């Protein structure tokens, strides 16, 4: 046991709390406690009940049964205002900020300081500076929030809670939107906060992060607390087992495989983003059948625009894209799809799905217009139903029925719908952009194995990911993208994590 020398007092306790939603027992007799000054990680897959528990603590829901005890007193929390008054602050996964307002304006929003009938910006800015200095947050109160990078926007959210004197801060999936460097900064800030007596509940499903920063770890599954452990006494495999409820293979099982002929050829491709800046600059590479070609890089180095230019969602400004011998430069998405592309898009809710459509309709989103789904311009519901039923089973989509709207599914199941739709077609090339972002262990494992299956079947796979581990586990060759250019291409077996990390950070290299 690595107990701290002085036993810290319990600042928040959840005792036997249950919450029933129609059809699901989202919290089932949950016990949970948070000690003063600790980082307590709450680990679980999507739908395990982490968010429900936090919503109960934050006053967005009321428990059916059980008590929430704050500072050794039973708290009756009816709304976020009550929880804020009790010193609880929450940083949501999707930020609650107004981009055109300054940091100070955002922070005071809902709790404005007024002097002689107008906002006292100076006083608020002074307090933000004070908080910023105290916790090493490095935030300029007069900056416009929309101009700040995501990592800093998140700090503004943290400042918001501290400004309201929060002693307990709930961070909901805080690293989902961050680059590895930004995540490191966040962890440092979390430690600074706890060192000054703030207690943190850290919600995540990333095992590594939990082991790196948490003082204690509580694992939830299907609305129940499975166990609370110390990081020193556990490892990734054990945590994954608790999360998923079965053995999980954390490494990808991948045999050597001969690559065949060139399927995707990209020559001197350039593209501009919305702001008309050239974010893809003279990129050339090729992907052969039967290989996974990974593009590594810190987010925002042109990967989004590159994949959009390749899939027809964005017009390239120059260069040439050839798929299976056909010149498809600047062609619309349908031509490229018909040439044999399967596209797993970066933003599954924006591009990959129509959330208010049923799974059935989403399963045919790219093929709805051709037989057997359409005959003479009329949709054939039977063919759609059969297709959906087959794919739901084959790709293990967890849903009560095929009529459920895609928006009602968990992130992992939404992604499975896209993967099922795209990989079940006869394709020559798969472009997968961030295919496992924000997903749980079970789904990641599944999607990785599907990608490898495609490769083993002789399909060319272009994998774009900001997760270096994912790139290294799946790819046969790796390209590193930095500021819109491919700065290196290497065989996976001839490189190391450190080497790739250096290239990703922009260390100058000769292209191998």
């Amino acid at each position, binding site marked *: 046991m690595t107990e701290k020398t002085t036993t810290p007092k319990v600042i928040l306790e959840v005792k036997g709390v249950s919450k029933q939603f129609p059809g699901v027992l989202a919290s089932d007799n949950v016990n949970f406690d948070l000690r003063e000054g600790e980082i307590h990680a709450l680990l679980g897959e999507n739908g395990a009940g982490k968010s429900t528990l936090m919503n109960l603590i934050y006053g967005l829901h009321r428990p059916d049964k059980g008590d929430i005890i704050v500072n050794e007193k039973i708290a009756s929390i009816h709304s976020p205002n009550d929880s804020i008054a009790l010193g609880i602050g929450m940083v949501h996964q999707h930020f609650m900020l107004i981009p055109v307002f300054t940091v100070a304006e955002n922070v005071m929003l809902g709790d404005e300081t007024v002097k002689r009938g107008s906002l006292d910006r100076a006083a608020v800015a002074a307090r933000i500076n004070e908080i910023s200095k105290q916790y090493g947050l490095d935030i300029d109160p007069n900056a416009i929030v929309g101009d700040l990078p995501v990592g800093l926007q998140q700090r503004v959210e943290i400042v918001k809670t501290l400004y309201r004197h929060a002693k307990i801060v709930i961070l909901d999936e805080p690293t989902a939107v961050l680059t590895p460097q930004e995540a490191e900064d966040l962890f440092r800030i979390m430690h600074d906060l706890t060192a000054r007596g703030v207690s943190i509940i850290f919600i995540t499903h990333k095992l590594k992060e939990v082991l790196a920063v948490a003082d204690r770890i509580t694992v939830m599954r299907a609305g129940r607390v499975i166990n609370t452990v110390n990081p020193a006494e556990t490892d990734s495999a054990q945590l994954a087992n608790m999360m998923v409820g079965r053995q999980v293979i954390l490494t990808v099982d991948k045999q050597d495989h001969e690559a065949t002929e060139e399927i995707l050829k990209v020559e001197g491709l350039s593209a501009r983003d919305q702001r008309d800046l050239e974010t893809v600059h003279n990129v050339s590479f090729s992907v052969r059948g039967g290989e996974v070609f990974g593009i590594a890089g810190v987010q925002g180095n042109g990967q989004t625009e590159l994949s959009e230019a390749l899939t027809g969602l964005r017009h390239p400004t120059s260069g040439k894209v050839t798929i299976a011998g056909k010149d498809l430069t600047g062609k619309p*998405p349908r031509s490229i799809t018909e040439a044999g592309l399967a596209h797993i898009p970066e933003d599954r809710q924006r591009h990959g799905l*129509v*959330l*208010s459509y049923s799974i059935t309709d989403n399963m045919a989103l790219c093929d709805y217009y051709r037989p057997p789904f359409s005959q003479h311009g009329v*949709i054939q519901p039977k063919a759609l139903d059969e297709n959906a039923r087959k794919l739901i089973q084959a790709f293990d989509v967890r849903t009560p029925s095929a009529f459920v709207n895609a928006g009602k599914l968990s992130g992992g199941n939404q992604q499975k719908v896209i993967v099922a739709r795209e990989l079940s077609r006869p394709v020559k090339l798969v472009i997968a952009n961030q295919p496992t972002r924000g997903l749980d262990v079970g789904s990641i494992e599944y999607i990785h194995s599907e990608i490898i299956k495609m490769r083993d079947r002789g399909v060319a796979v272009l994998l774009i990911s900001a997760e270096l581990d994912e790139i290294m586990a799946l790819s046969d060759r790796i390209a590193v993208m930095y500021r819109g250019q491919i700065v290196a291409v290497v065989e996976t077996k001839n490189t190391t994590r450190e080497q790739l990390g250096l290239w990703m950070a922009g260390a100058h290299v000769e292209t191998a």
Partner: protein
Amino acid sequence: MQSEKQSNSLIKRILQSISEAALIPFLAILTAVVIGGIIILLVGGDPIRAYTGLIQGSMGSRKAWSETAVWATPYIFAGLAVALAFKGGLFNIGAEGQLAVGAVFSALIGYALPEWLGFDLPVYIHLPLAIFTGMLTGGIWASIVGFLKAYTGGHEVINTIMMNYIALNTTSYLLNGVMKDKSPTNVIARTPLIAESARMPEIFEGLRVHWGFVLALFVALFIWWLLNKTTLGFEIRTVGLNPDAAKYAGINVKRTIVITMLFSGMLAGLAGSIEVTGLNYRHELGFSIGYGLDAIAIALLGKSHPLGVVLASFLFAAMRNGATRMQFLTQLPVDLISMLQALILLFVAADAIIRYIYRIKAKGERVVLTRGWGG
């Protein structure tokens, strides 16, 4: 056995979705009627007598039913026009103008074509031609807005409003000028009567209800089929719900926007044509004032579903038609009806009020009618 079970659950599902969709509009109407009754009381009227008059006037006799159907006909067409655009993610405020364009061209074909040709046409050619011309011109008028939206990003709300001004003022110019009824006694801005061969036959002798009403019901059924059962309908709905996903799925988003506006305008144009060929036998300035705008209310109340539009059209038609009888019985002004309609709409649009009053939990996502300027 298995399939029977499945079809049972299918029927159950359909019924459930209907009752869910209709719940808010139904409660909105109920609430509006109650509040309307209170207001009638406050101004010293008798709400029971007023509502009795309303029902008698709209459904109390064969003639009342006929007149309600007459009112409902343009409402159904124009309501479908707005509803179809909503489904495609577009807010067509221009039904009023498209309707006027359709009416003008229908009337023109109706009275002038035999003159131009120098001989009379049989009804089975002349009538369809008049209707079709009105429909098509209404569609072309609206598709201009579709082009502007798709290729320049010009927002359809602004452009349909502007196009309304152009259409209505041009109509006024034409009806006061070259298209004016030249008969010596006429002082009104109206076209001459259309030829007999361009008129719709009546269904029942002595009643004004015409075949246009039957056509409206068929067109509603067709639009439902188009939206839900065809490839084009799938494209329209996908673009309406998520244009990014539509583009990803290979749908030509720009073309779909233009087609949606074209179809929407055709429906509005049809509303105008049918009024000319089925009811008035001419186009007269000001006959349609309000149809195109009421159509927005009808599409909202009907939740943009063709069946909902038909039902909402009936409600609005019954209220308009029964108003006269109500006024006769209670001396309450007809404007009360506008107030009732406004209350219904208020509660449908601000459904949170209804949900609060009747303690209904919000379910699923909210209806997104149109997106912001960037959309």
